[in-house]
């Protein structure tokens, strides 16, 4: 048994670190598990995010962040455990149902509709929200663009509204994704590596934008992130995973000081410094 294994065995249940009333939480995750062919990818993760709060989910490669994320957004069904959104258990629902319950998403590798303009991308989300996808008569170009423009305005993309998504710079695509994610007035935003592939200056700008929107509109945000600078600058709280288990949770300062976290990161030779 290595030193780090011993340390992990002694981890206290992470939820004890939370001191808000649990029923007020936008998202409440209790003890979810997932294994693939005998390999435990996620084993007993619990977490919660409140309105206007940014929770970062971090950990070295293979820690189970993506699996965790995919259970929350509906791409994977947890083996057990509960995922409660605004009081409703959403575990195992398909992504599109989860979206309708008020969860917006951005992807690690941006996913937008390349053959449509920026504006149309946002309009699609609005049309879907309005249950109008099976309309075969009214041209999309005659839709009132006001709401979509307002969303683009919020992410600073209004000027590029007419450009096709296929030709945008990567940072701009991330903003478009944010606008799409905001289209159904979500209670929760799930952002998978929101700043991956961006220039450092853009990263800060995007996360500031996200944090502002979240706080102003009371949206809970859960994000994973490799860039520790971004995490410590913008997260309200941080949950650290290693090999599918939570090893630390708390305020950025607490997590930064946690010796087990340091050990995990240094021990795995992570390239991103934690301090």
């Amino acid at each position, binding site marked *: 048994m290595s030193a780090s294994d011993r340390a992990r065995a002694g981890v206290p249940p992470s939820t004890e670190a939370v001191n808000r009333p649990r029923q007020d939480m936008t998202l409440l995750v209790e003890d979810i598990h997932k294994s693939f062919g005998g390999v435990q990818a996620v084993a007993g993760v619990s977490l919660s995010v409140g309105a206007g709060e940014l929770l970062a989910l971090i950990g070295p490669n293979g820690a189970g962040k993506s699996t965790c994320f995919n259970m929350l*957004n509906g791409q994977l069904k947890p083996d057990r455990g509960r995922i409660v959104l605004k009081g409703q258990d959403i575990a195992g629902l*398909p*992504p*599109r*149902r989860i*979206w*309708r319950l008020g969860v917006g*998403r951005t*992807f690690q*590798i941006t*996913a*937008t*509709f*390349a*053959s*449509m*303009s920026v504006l*149309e991308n946002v*309009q*699609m*989300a609005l*049309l*879907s*929200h309005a249950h*109008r*996808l*099976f*309309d*075969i*008569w*009214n*041209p*999309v*170009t005659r839709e009132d663009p006001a709401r979509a423009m307002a969303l683009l305005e919020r992410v600073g993309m209004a000027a590029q509204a007419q450009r*096709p998504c*296929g030709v945008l710079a990567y940072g701009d695509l991330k903003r478009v994704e944010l606008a*799409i994610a905001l*289209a*159904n007035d979500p209670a929760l935003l799930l952002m998978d590596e929101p700043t991956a592939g961006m220039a450092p200056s853009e990263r800060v700008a995007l996360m500031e934008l996200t944090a502002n929107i979240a706080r102003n509109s009371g949206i809970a945000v859960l994000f994973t992130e490799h860039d520790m600078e971004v995490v410590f600058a913008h997260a309200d709280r941080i949950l650290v995973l290693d090999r599918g288990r939570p090893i630390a949770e708390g305020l950025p300062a607490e997590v930064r000081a946690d010796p087990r976290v340091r050990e995990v990161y240094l021990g795995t030779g992570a390239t991103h410094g934690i301090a």
Partner: protein
Amino acid sequence: MVQGLSGLASASSLFLVASGLTVIFGVTRIVNFAHGSLYMMGAYLSWTLVTALPRGHLGFWGGVLVAALIVGVIGVLIEVLLLRRIYKAPELFQLLGTFGVVLIVQDVALMIWGPQDLLGPRAPGLRGAVEILGVRFPLYELFLIAVGPVVLGLLWLLFHRTRWGTTVRAATADREMVGALGVNQRMLFTTVFFLGSVLAGLGGALQLPRESVNLQMDLAIIAEAFVVVVIGGLGSLPGAFLAALLLGQLQAFGILIFPKITLVLAFLVMAVVLVVRPHGLLGRPPASAHAAHVVEPPYPPATPLARNLGFAALALAVLVPPFMGEFALIVFTEIAIMVLFAASLHFIMGPGGMASFGHAAYFGLGAYGAALLAKHFAAPMELGLFAAPLMAGFAGVVFGWFCVRLSGVYAAMLTLAFAQIAWSTAFQWVEITGGDNGILGVWPSAWAQPKLVYYYMALVLCVGVTLLLRRAIFAPFGYALRAGRDSPLRAEAIGMDGFRIRWVAFILAAIAAGIAGGLFAYAKGSVFPTYMAIPRSVDALLMVLLGGVQTVSGPIVGALAYTWIHEQLMRSFDLWRLFLGSVIVALVLFFPQGLVGAAQRLTERRK
């Protein structure tokens, strides 16, 4: 037991052809329609060589091998002169080019080898038969049974023990990898094409002692070879081997119980396999689902120029016919129907990103819907034209439910399987459908009998429904369809039910094709299984690709151009296939985005 051996021999032959096809597809992602032509050339060339060379082992086996190598060189020529220039074209576009090659080869072979079937000599040393369990079994068949596994083994060694083979496998698993590995992609594709063509040529040459060489060999083998490749899993050699074995055995034993099942057995098996295993027996889902996608261009609203051209064409279509002869009206009616047929296929293929190799099923079912009512219930045309989209739409509901779950070539092949099942039903259910003799006397009601009246009716319906489809493409539904094509992940993440959207699109396309089919039935006065046979499905594909699958007006222009060229050439030239093939190849080379795609580029450049 001996029945099983017979099945094994057929399986071996089939595997040779299918292995070449699957290797080529695996690396280049080209649906090589000309593979059957390469097979046929292998057979013809070996016939020429073997009959010209001195008799004996050297003459025979040497002839077979040299024929295979020559076919390999022909394959390289096709790759270098034609396909290499269109790798960047939209998906499946290469199919159009290879189809042109098929047509050219058919007429060239006719010119060189004449119309009569040729029977080659038997293989020296393997003429006779051996006694197995009291039944005589040809030695050559035993030899063929061995050839399959031996070729599989050699290919395995080639792919696992050489650097080139490793690259091929890497490229098959993930096309993007090739660029990353710094491999000379051109060289890789050309050599792969050589190997695939040699295998096809060898497959054909080895048939020499077994079957007569004839001009129908190419199309007889190609569908079955594709079925084997798809059942096995695209790009998978062991899969192709397994599938060939499965088909060979099912065929050998199936005819003992159902002698008439020969028409459709392969397609039935494919349908079952694909429903149960969407990527074939040993196929894997594509490695990179969305990241590596070709970026589809946007659909710009029609420019004033295009709009005016459209109006002018429509005005011509309305104003000119009264001054034309009856035959021109017949042709115009047919063109109008083909425009709708192509537009209906484009609806799922363009915005939906789902190619269909069996779209004629809905066209044909529409025609049969009308004809069956007319035949069995003496229904008038008005009712028949109402039944056509109903029948096609119903088939769309059922078949679509299975097809839209699959993606890419698998989905396209499943549509083909269903089309063949529908076709064989019409073909075999003689009591109801009249079998291949069809249903006659499906003539319009008295008021629509004059050709001009019928033309206007067809024009209104076809243009109307085509415009409706166009309207749907620019409405939220069409956008949602495109959304699912561009990024299934994002579409799902904003609440779209991709399955339902594609399913509804499939049904709408089937209904539109059914209307076209119903109109076609009354225009011709008769209905035949050929209405839903593979060539008609291919016609639809060609029209869409020729016009430009990535544009909204493409299918319309494609249908106009293809129907017109086809009709003119077929009427004017004995060697019309050679001409049509050459025209197609030329169009493919000069307009790799299709006709409308090229026009759009041209106007964009002018700006």
